[in-house]
């Protein structure tokens, strides 16, 4: 008993010592972790998100911070290295004592940090469209789930353009493969497309020679039925893909391409003249004509000191996520993880397209879905917008394994994958 007692005292003493060393800092600031790659392959997309977070934090501090304390950004560089994401996340939470983390881009980086956030019970806001099939207590998904991007895009093409034949082209990794699996089921079951009228094609990361594939698309498109390409091609491979489309003279009027990973930022390195009319599906376009958006763009351009920089969808996702966190912390009266997680469900903040986004019990948010056509100036022009907000669906209704699953983190259910058929929570968060 005595030894136990001594041990406990020692433990308390050590904890207290650790606490006080941090309390000094923690007393006047709230630390916000930013976990985006600033070097390596993904730096191209993620650096912008780091900058937008810094801007949001600066803006919030001008308004007086959160709960009367200033926010202090803590930036780390996981260098596009997936295991390093987990290490850096641990460093942020354990060593730097951040209260919330905004970060990750690729699904594999998110999967790599999940166990860390679960173990240390912290909060991650993930701002990128992803393949779904996941809902975790400590993670908030502010990007689009497949039903907030892919499925409305396919619906638009089928209705407005009368597309009967589909090419699903993607980069060979988890997001395109899962999305295409969902789309294939959706096309076959909901739109009655025959198996012959679907062509699926995968290419490696950074694929640069698109001649054969573009010729194949042309060939597939000459079967006398209206054809469209649904592209989940990611990252660097897009520029040579679009260049080849333009060179081989595939016009949007003949075979439109709708992309889920091409935004204003990706088009910045391209001459979009020959690409006018090709489409993208997002929840935000820089061209959105609202006062909130105009204000955001103005602040962004002055923050980054470059008049040519563009804004894009994941930036808006961070904007929404950050404001939600601020609001939830104010409701909870603390930035402690469990209290914020409980408080954030149902929190509603304005988005940049003139509406409001709400955090749902499955930790996804409601968003409008916009379909835009590429214009000659590198911007998108919205040609279709869902009439209301679409709630993000963590578990797709079009995959056999996940049809019966729902996610609800409110008590008493508090489960990320509750099977409505068996009435059981399968326990794992993801």
């Amino acid at each position, binding site marked *: 008993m005595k030894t136990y007692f001594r041990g406990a005292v020692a433990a308390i003493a050590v904890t207290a010592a650790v606490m006080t060393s941090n309390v000094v800092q923690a007393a006047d600031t709230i630390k916000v972790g930013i976990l985006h790659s*600033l070097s390596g392959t993904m730096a*191209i997309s993620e650096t912008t998100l780091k900058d937008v977070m810094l801007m949001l934090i600066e803006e919030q501090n001008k308004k007086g911070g959160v709960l009367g304390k200033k926010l202090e950004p803590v930036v780390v560089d996981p260098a596009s290295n997936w295991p390093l994401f987990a290490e850096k996340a641990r460093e942020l939470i354990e060593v730097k004592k951040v209260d919330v983390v905004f970060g990750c881009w690729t699904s594999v980086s998110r999967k790599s940090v999940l166990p860390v956030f679960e173990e240390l019970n912290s909060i991650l806001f993930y701002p990128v469209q992803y393949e779904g099939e996941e809902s975790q207590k400590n993670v908030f998904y502010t990007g689009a789930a497949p039903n907030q991007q892919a499925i409305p895009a396919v619906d638009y093409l089928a209705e407005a353009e009368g597309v009967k034949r589909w090419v699903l082209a993607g980069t060979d990794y988890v997001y395109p493969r899962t999305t295409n699996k969902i789309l294939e089921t959706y096309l076959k079951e909901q739109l009655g497309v025959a198996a012959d009228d679907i062509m699926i094609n995968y*290419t490696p990361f950074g694929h640069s020679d698109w*001649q054969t594939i573009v010729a194949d698309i042309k060939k597939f498109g000459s*079967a*006398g039925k209206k054809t469209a390409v649904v592209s989940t091609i990611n990252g660097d491979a897009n520029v040579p893909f679009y260049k080849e489309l333009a060179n081989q003279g595939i016009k949007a*009027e003949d075979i439109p391409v709708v992309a889920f990973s091409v935004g204003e*930022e990706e088009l910045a390195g391209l001459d979009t003249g020959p690409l006018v009319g090709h489409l993208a599906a997002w929840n935000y376009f820089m061209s959105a004509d609202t006062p909130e958006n105009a204000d955001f763009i103005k602040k962004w351009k002055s923050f980054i000191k470059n008049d040519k920089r563009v804004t894009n969808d994941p930036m808006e996702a961070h904007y929404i996520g950050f404001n939600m966190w601020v609001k939830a912390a104010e409701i909870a009266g603390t930035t402690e993880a469990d209290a914020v997680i409980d408080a954030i469900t149902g929190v509603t903040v304005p988005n940049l397209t003139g509406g409001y986004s709400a955090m749902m019990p499955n930790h996804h948010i409601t968003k409008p879905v916009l379909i835009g056509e590429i214009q000659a100036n590198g911007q998108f022009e919205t040609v279709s917008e869902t009439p209301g907000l679409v709630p993000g669906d963590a578990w797709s209704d079009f995959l056999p394994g996940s049809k019966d699953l729902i996610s609800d983190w409110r008590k008493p259910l508090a489960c990320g994958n509750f099977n409505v058929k068996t009435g059981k929570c399968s326990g794992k968060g993801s």
Partner: protein
Amino acid sequence: MARYLHSFVLFLALIWLIPGLAAPAHAADDDLRAKIDALASGGFSQTAKQIQDLAATGDDRVVPALQALLAGKLYFKKAGKQVFITEKASGGYALTDPLTGESAGTLARGALKKIRVNNRLRRELKAALGNLTLLSKVTAVRLKAAEAVFKSQDPDTLEALVSAISKETDDGVKKVLEQAHAAVLLKTDAAEADKIAALAVIEDRGDRDALSVVIATAAQAEGALKAAAEKTATSIRQNLELWGAAQNIWYGLSLGSVLLLAAIGLAITFGVMGVINMAHGEMVMIGAYVTFMVQEVIRTSMPGLFEYSLLISVPLAFLVAGAIGMAVERCIIRFLYGRPLETLLATWGLSLALQQAVRTIFGPSNREVGTPDYMSGAFELGHLTITYNRLWIIVFSLVVLFALMAVLKKTPLGLQMRAVTQNRRMAGAMGIRTNWVDAVTFGLGSGIAGIAGVALSQIDNVSPNLGQSYIIDSFMVVVFGGVGNLWGTLVGAMTLGVANKFLEPYAGAVLGKVLVLVFIILFIQKRPRGLFALKGRAIES
């Protein structure tokens, strides 16, 4: 002065009075103008109807308005909903009357709203413009119109086509018009015999669009017509298969030329000097960034030179990448000769450092490198689509290869390089400064990598990651072709390119690449020195 003032006042009066003036001056155009102004209201499906209305007038005065709509230059005034053709000007947009073509002053951006078009409207517009311009005086416009009608296959155009064919004087345009006529005929309920005759005209065209028309016909027809259509489809398909093989060879050569460009520099640094240079890709990347810088300077100070930007970039990229290469050799590599593992690690580290340096200076996002006109677009050779950028890259890669061969074989520098790599001590004894030759050789290899970057900037992203995607392929080509042999590099690159392109349609891009790698591994087992092995004592040591 007074005269200027006078016209200015008149001009002002015109702007103010246009709503009042327009009515009496163009009373006859009222109907047309109302139809054009109607474009200002309604959603996409209404706009489609309005376009059809305009096309149905058959009046070619509506052509400028429709063209402007297609180009996204048709706006309307928010107040009054009057439609104008616009052009960007200082202080807003310069307005032009869509019917008369007269200038109608300038308005701020905020007072105007663009009439939006989507893909469906663009199709409608192209079809409408096709119908309206079939009788244009310019041959090229008529040709474009005929192609547009072929694509739209609108049954209402049949009569217009018949009269256009009878008036047509140019043989090329006439042929396309007849094909368009045949395609439209297949959509109508004409007699079966006429339709079968039309199929023959379509078969003569023989491309993918023709195939598309024939398949659509076969799907709807019955009896003799269906049989005929299916027969035609098979014949077109067989023909296209043959062309497809030719196309694959062309794609293979073009991929090969890209591999060749990326690998030539490495054939010097790795092939001739034996340095495992993992930073080779970054030299390519630096070349691409030099091109970007050159274009930036040209854009801001001498826009007229844009067409020559690539020509100017070539020597600059060579010098910049070459200088960096020489500095690298002097500062790092020369201490590591004979220690391949350390060289590999050091140059790999160097490649990361160079990438990050570029990322810090230029930012992580892609940079836009413009394409000069002579490298954009494509032309048709039979049923082959040959894109100009690929054609020029093939030519360019061969020029670089032969220029390098000439340097190695015909110049004193080349002689010294070969001497040093074959027998360093002997060369030293003959008075060659071997250290200096090493630096220059490495600089030459790096410089050529820089030149490759100029060409690759035309087909790939100009981003800090550009080099990474080429480094593995470059090593593959050099090892496969035979280390130290430029002909081997040429044959190796082209073989791998063509093999890749023949595998891709069957195996897919991912598996195709794997298969090529497996093939190379097996090949190297059999012939460790590659396709063209050098023979002699220098190799054995």
